[in-house]
Structure formats: structure tokens, C-alpha cells
């Protein structure tokens, strides 16, 4: 079997398993203001991309253990992550661990 066919089958399976999957994945923004992720909890679909942007005068990070880890974001820097599998992704700022958030991917 060719790789292309495998990919097609995988895509078809994904479509069957995820009836909510839309033709166009969305780009969703999370802002960081005043040491707070906003929105703190977000529901997205598989395939969506979330972009975090730091508006504080202090650097922050976005870390989800074993899933994703941003570089240090200085003021107005951003970090994006595309969610390819469903699940609850708890994340936090590794510099200011009281800052926490959650992305629910369905």
C-alpha cells in the first residue's frame, strides 16, 4: 500500500470517528494579561491551533507536561500549538506556577 493511500484511509477514519471535525480548523487566541490566561479554560476541536500572546511586562511561558512547552515569551511574544488529539490539556506558566489554564480538545 502506498503512503498516500494510508494517509487517505487515516483521514477517512478520523472523519468517521470525529463527526464534528470541520473543513477548516480554527485559530484561537489566548491572551496573557495581569498574570492570567484568558480565557482560562477553552474548548477546541481536533486540528485547531491555539495561540498564546503575552501582554505583560514580565516574561511568561506556557507548559503542558509532556505535551507542549513554549520558549520564554517576552512582552508581545506569541506561542502556537496545534492540537491533533482529543483530551484535556492542563497547562501553566513555569515561571509563575500559580498561572494555570486548560484546553479541552474534542
Amino acid at each position: 500500500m502506498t503512503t498516500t493511500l494510508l494517509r487517505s484511509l487515516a483521514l477517512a477514519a478520523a472523519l468517521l470517528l470525529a463527526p464534528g471535525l470541520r473543513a477548516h480548523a480554527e485559530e484561537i487566541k489566548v491572551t496573557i494579561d495581569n498574570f492570567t490566561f484568558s480565557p482560562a479554560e477553552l474548548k477546541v476541536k481536533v486540528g485547531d491551533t491555539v495561540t498564546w500572546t503575552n501582554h505583560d511586562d514580565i516574561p511568561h511561558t506556557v507548559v503542558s507536561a509532556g505535551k507542549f512547552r513554549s520558549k520564554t515569551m517576552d512582552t508581545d511574544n506569541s506561542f502556537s500549538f496545534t492540537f491533533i488529539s482529543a483530551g484535556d490539556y492542563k497547562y501553566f506558566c513555569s515561571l509563575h506556577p500559580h498561572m494555570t489554564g486548560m484546553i479541552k480538545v474534542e
Partner: protein
Amino acid sequence: MSDHDHTHNDQERGLSRRKVLECMTWAGTGVLWTISGGVPHSLGLVEAANAAETNGMTFMQISDSHVGFDKPANPNALGTLEEAINKVKAMAKKPSFMIHTGDISHLSKAAEFDDADRIISQSKLDVHYVPGEHDFLDEEIKFYRERYGKGTKGAGYYSFDANGVHFVGLVNVVDLKAGGLGNLGAEQLAWLADDLKGKSKSTPVVLFAHIPLWTVYPEWGWGTEDGARALELVKGFGSVTVLNGHIHQVMQKVEGNVTFHTARSTAFPQPAPGTAASPGPMKVDDAKLRSVLGIASIDFKQGQEKLAIIDTPLAG
């Protein structure tokens, strides 16, 4: 008018009596200690200065220089660090050495550490550093360790002795857990227990770390998750002083034989706990900035239970 705005010196000796001390600013020139449930005792600045003259050792604390920070709260953090070092250079009695309680740099860039070194070295004092979370931001987390980590354990903890006082520099800014506070970790605590083993209980102990070892305001992360375990290890010692930074303001607490104190930043002030939407840099009038930045000198007198801490703003 003197620019010394705080003086802490509990001349009462008494290990067994637990006292609650409150610190009140006294007409902007000094501090009045009041002892609840005991005899009130106050110490003016002149007394503190005289005490300092006869003392064996004075050391400096600077903190949170955030070299590289250029936001509205202070567009020139390097400049105010230089002013702070000039204050140290101008001291009548040359301090024995200096400790820096972290956040030397703002973004852990090599140039920021270079600039900090260039200014701080002008003090011509030995400087003992502990890292802040802003000092571990480079991709390989190597700049701090290369510069300040020689001879240290783990992420940079160590101890040394000076004039009969045992100093311990601790690291509580790594492996932070989601939703938690500062963190020392089991390995460092085991090392601390071992380090203190065999020390005479009459040895004065100074613990210094970036984030406060006691819980100042957990809503803003101002505390150390396992700080109480470190304090448990120094419980039997007659004199314990805990020096921290991170919160960019003077705050103190005396609990039994333990004095807790946080130093001002040399870069920018942060709001008092809960008085703002976040602990971020606080913009004050340009004319007021130097009154909320500063340094601390800590005076140790043989036979004295407590160390005298004098916070000095850059101006005002």
C-alpha cells in the same frame, strides 16, 4: 533627614519567649519595634549606627536587578543598579561582602549578565549569588551556572561561613509545579539537613533564596511550597535570619528566633499583596521611583541574637 527608613534590631535576648513584633515606620526616619505581650522596645537610627560602629561584620544584600528590563516601570534598570552599587561604594564602613538574591538579569541573555557583572564588580566586594527564575530562561540554562554556579550543588545551592555566621544560599526557582509556589525539592532539603548537621545551635544561621521561604501571598505565588521543611531544619538554632527578594518590596516578620526579611529591587517596584490586579511591575511617578528601589545592609554583632537590617532606598 536620613534616608535609612527601616531599622530592625531586637536587642531583647530570650530564646524561650515567643514575641510578636510589629514594625512601624516612625516619621520616616527609623522604625519602632513594638513587642506585643512584652516590654516595648524601640531603637532609633543613631543607636543602630553606633551599634554598627562597634560591630564585627556588615554585609550587603541587593536583589532583583533585572538587567535588561526597559519597560515603563523603569526604562533604565541598569542605571538604577549602578546607583545602588554607588550607594554601597559610598558606605562609611566597607561591608565584608554582598549577597544577591536573584533575578540578576531580566531574560537570561549573555549581554544582560555581562552588564550586571560590569556594574556589580565595581563594588569590589565578593558577591554570593542565588538565582531567580529570570536567571534560568536561556535555552540551555547555562549562563547562570557558568558564571555563578562554580562549586555549588544542584541548581546552585551552597553554604559558607563568615565571622562565625553560617550562610546558606538556596535555590527555590526550579522544577516549579503547576498551581504551586517556589520549590526547594527533596534533594536540596536533604543536603541542607546534612549541611547543618553538627553545627552548634549557637551558630547564627542566615538562609537566603530568591522567592520568600515563608508564605507571603500564595495568590501571587509569593511563598515556597516546602519552605516550612527548611525552617524545620533550623528550628533549634538560636538566631536565624531569612533573606529573600522576588517581591520587590520590604517586608518582614519575626517569629520566635527567626527573622524574615525581603529586600527591595534595584529595578522596579511591585505592588503590596492584593492591592493590584497582578504582581507585575508597578509604575510610579518618575520622581518617586528611587524611593521604592534600594539595598539592604545587614549587621551582625557578636553575642547578639538578632541581626540588624537597614534598608536604604536609592533616594527619598
